[in-house]
């Protein structure tokens, strides 16, 4: 298994001393929270702040036993927390707003928030999958590089071939094989994330 299931991560959180569980949870959801807040129109710094506060709030709630699995999905919980933190920050800004500055818009509704969340979660999975591909793949450096240039960055095959010193056909082959592998990793990760969310 590439990664621990969400259920196992969450169970680990019961023990405040389980640093590994906390950092695993943090690593998994902080990027999603940051991207989520950024999509709501916050600057990167504010989004990072919202993610920090949301994780802290989640930890507090979890330790106080306020999070019960049967009461809802983990994602709904996190979305709810992040939304509250974000609204709080907006209100705070509003109180200190002066002059004709434009305000951030209204908060999107529930289904829209869920949609944004799952998009950002998917993006986080893609990114993590790519890291895993890099660390686990048997392919050599130039094949990986050709894959990245051609399949991910959209550099024309001829250019990628020239840069990596391999043939154009090898570039196409790299794309075919490594994309397939990347898809498998994404599938596994998605299962691990879903289980428990």
């Amino acid at each position, binding site marked *: 298994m590439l990664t621990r299931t969400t259920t196992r991560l969450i169970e680990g959180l019961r023990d405040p001393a389980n*640093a590994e569980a*906390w*950092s695993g949870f*943090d690593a998994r959801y902080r*990027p999603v929270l940051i991207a989520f807040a*950024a999509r709501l129109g916050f*600057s*990167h*710094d*504010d989004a*990072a*702040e919202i993610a*920090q506060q949301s*994780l*802290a709030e989640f*930890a*507090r709630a979890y330790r106080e036993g306020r999070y019960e699995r049967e009461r809802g999905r983990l994602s709904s919980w996190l979305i709810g927390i992040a939304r509250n933190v974000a609204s709080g920050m907006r209100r*705070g*800004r509003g*109180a*200190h707003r*002066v*002059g*004709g*500055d*434009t305000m951030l818009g209204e908060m999107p509704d529930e289904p829209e928030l869920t949609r944004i969340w799952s998009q950002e979660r*998917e*993006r*986080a999975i*893609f*990114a993590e*999958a*790519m*890291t895993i591909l*890099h660390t686990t793949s048997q392919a050599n450096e130039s094949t990986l590089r050709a894959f990245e240039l051609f*399949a*991910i*960055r*959209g550099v*024309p*095959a*001829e*250019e990628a071939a*020239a*840069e990596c010193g391999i043939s*154009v*056909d090898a*570039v*196409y*082959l790299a*794309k*075919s094989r490594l*994309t*397939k592998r*990347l*898809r498998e990793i*994404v599938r596994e990760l998605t299962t691990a994330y879903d289980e428990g969310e």
Partner: protein
Amino acid sequence: MREPCPPPATLELFALRGEGAAAVEDHVARCPACREYIDDARENEAFLGRAAPAILEAKPAPREPIDPHAVEGFELVEEISRGGQGVVYRAVQAATHRPAAVKMLLAGAFASDRQRRRFEREVEIAARLRHPNVVTVFESGQTPDGRPFVAMEFVNGVPIDRYVRDRLPEPGRERTDAVLRLFLAIASGVAAAHSAGVIHRDLKPSNILVDADGVPRVLDFGLARPIANHPEASLTHEFAGTPAYAAPEQFAGDGAAIGTATDVYALGVMLYNALTGRHPYPRDGSLAELARHAASTDPPPPSRFVRRLPSDVETIVLKSLAKDPARRYRSAGSMAADIGDYLSGLPISARRDSPAYVLHRLAKRHRGTAAAALVVLLTIVGAVVGLALLASDLDHERRAALDALRDSRIHRARLMAAAGELDQAEELLWREALLAGVRAHDPDFGVEQNALQRRVSWGLIEYYSRVPRAMRVRMGGAIDWVTIAEDGSEVGAGDVTGASGVWSRDGRLLRSTPPLRVLPLNNHLTSQYSSDYARHVRYADGSLRIVDPRSGATLAGPLAIERPPRQFWMTRDGGYVVVWDNDRSVRVLDGRTLDERRVLLGPEAMAFNMRLLDGQGTLAIVCVAPPAACVRSWRLDTLLEFPFRATYPPAPIGLDAAANSINSLTIPAVSADGRWCAAGYGGSILVWDAALPNEPSVLLGHSASVVHLTFSADASRLISVGTDGSTCVWGLPSRDLLHRWSNGSRGLAADIRTDLGLLALGDIRGFATLYELGDRPWLHAAPAPPMGIMALAVSRDGRTYAWGGQAGSITVYDADSKRAMHEIDAHDALISAVCFSPDGGTLYSGSVDGAVRAWNPATGTLERTIFEGLPAVWALSASPDGRSLAAGGLGGFVCAWDTTTWEARPFLGIESIRVPNLAFSPDGALLAAVSAHPDVQPCVWNARTGDPLFRLRGHTREVRALAFSPDGATIATGSDDLTIRIWDAQTGSLLRTITGLARDPFELAFDPTGRILYCVGRSPGLGVYDPIAGIELASIAVHEGLVFGLALSPDGRTLVTGGEDDFIAFWSLDHLFSYVRGNASRWEEQLADDLAHDDPRGVGTPRGPNE
């Protein structure tokens, strides 16, 4: 026998695009392996469509350990990207704590010294570029191991293609316009480089980052050529650029043909892509195929892919993509001009030959424009039509069209400013001002002979009425320090090149010192110099020295310090050197001998962030005081620590608490008296009072990280600056947000003088800016009587004002001492009219109680009651010769008295409900009165005989406002039909109509030149009009309630308004104009080259007077 499978490339192209169908199809039908390959390819493609953008956006893991100190002056934090040119790191500039990006080029990137020199020269030019849409280069140089690097502004953004795909609205007009707005900004940035003589040569999406605010910035100017010429880095012989965005002349290897139009082509490719989602021609083939396409394949018209794409947009795109560079836009500036014109609904130059076309565009524009602009333009279009029909004078036609263009640009800039887009508006206005030949320092500024000049001058005046920016000048590099002179009359600043200057309040350079040229660029941090630049502290070869920056001679040291310090400073007086060591300890050395004076913190304190606050004479350090982070601070003179330690409670979850919050506490500051301490915490500010060292308050005012904090010397204010370019001024101890505005750029240095109400700010773009604090400093407010005033007048010498209102009392006010001299209990009811006799010796008052009285304004005593028992009096006017006094009021009465005998002259009367206003002409020959009845037109009499002469026919509703022009030639009237009409005073014929007023006009006043007409009324603003051109010039809001009174000092420099509000506003127009003057030289400098080189319409020379 088994036939060979087609190669992967063939299979994939077949799978995805059906290419090579016949031969491949046959094989695939028989070969299961190839079928699987094809299925995979299709699934892969669908998957990559979603995954690739997410992967690209994610931060790549660092691939090799970073040496954080590889580049002197910067701390490298993490790898951002790696490519053919080298590696880019996120970094922090050690001396300023500015985030930066450091691009490290490949070792040995240059084939020869000549190439290196050219690279250095180009980077130097690029470093001088300052444009909001171009990434600022800080410096360049070489690492100790010989790798060239460039350090630049860090942009947290995404490439333009991804931004367009993910963040813009769905296809449609809105999206098209959003794309064009982006490209307008990009093309303006590239244009700035072009006019500085730099060509990019490698514009492509990854070189254009769009930040969270949607602002695009172009990267890597000056980098493309040396890389392209490097034999190993260059993949393709003479080829420079990225194939998919390269122009035909780049493929042709024709170095001489590569120019500004080459960049235009790349912009065209990206614009095409952004609009249509496709490339102008297939980009997947070999380099040779790409070259062939670039040279000969005509791009399909974008309208084929985008429904209802405006034809102008298509023209712009296709002109940018012309194969022949000579047929493209000459430079990015011309491209930007066309995009800008399209966006504001104006004809673009790309197709300017047909007058019918120009008219089509102009006419189209009307439909969506505000009524005022509409009428102005209709008039102009009328002129254009007429001229076009006559076709006799092409020059005239062109000029009329140009006038319309410029008028509408000024109008657009004003709308932008009103909408809060201040930076763009300001540049647009100055551009037009300089094109029109406006000279802010000339005495006739604002009342110029030339109508276009008046229009743009008032656009600027209106602009600065919103922005209290008293002065702005520009230096060569990011500003390192600023200071305000004791009396506030001068501002001094120094930049990171070591140059310094002193400017007067009107932006004139008084004296300056040149940049220091002795040391390599990356040592030019003035915080390592004494203020006289005689001493400089350097670290090199494992030791610290004090050197003479001009001769390079060692004055003190060397002091061996094995590992390079994190940072070190010299105090301005040269007395101390503060060293933040590699092990995080902090010590103070003697600035002359380098002897150790005191160790402030040992390594165990983990000093994490520190600041030397020379202006306050303090030093503040963020460090660890387990289990929390704290800010400790010292007095610089005694090196004694202030007793209180400002602590911040641990952040929550999982991590080591102190280290976590210490990470977040930045830019510590302490006030000179040690009472207050502050630090940045992301986008918020923590402020501690020494009395409550554990309970900081949190101040929210910025939308992004706070990067600068300074206390005023008297500790009554705290200034904070955010990466979002906003500046906040907070009051202490209240911690109230007193002022907030956008500086347009990130501040690095500040000086605040609360006693003078001045704040100087130096920023990353090299601007030193002086702001006036306080609410509209150009305004003086005198208290109004309860419930406000109805009538206002000024004496002919301009020294005495009088007003009266609801309460029946009159205030006589001395303008010089700004004091009320008398409060006269004058009438039993509301005072509706006041006026002075021409010699100023008598003040007349009229009231709804039906009385008219005369007062001595010097003593405040009654001279006589002229009449009692009239219907309610609403208007008074004294004749210029002082012999007559006229009154008008309820029931439409108008009467006059001889002021020597006080005999009543014949009653005139105009059968109206009420006469709200009347006036004698300047020569005293005419008396005019207006009527508050829609069907009764204003009337003009012979003032001596009382014979009616004519009526002013045209207004459709009641008329309340009336004024004669100073030369007596015209009369202006203002009506509730929301027009001001200008009449010939001799004949009563209508000369012109100003429409689209924002307010029912109550009072009008001419400037002494007769070229400006001020208006107040139902809405709280002051309207400024051009009575000669017949247009609105500006609208400036000052009041909250209705405005009934308007008076202009005889010299035209002080405007006084009052009404329902509890204050009378004294406007110093000179003060307001001084803002324009204080900002002028900087724009003149910045735009001079631009306007000279990039004015496709050839309108760079001002026109002569047009009246």
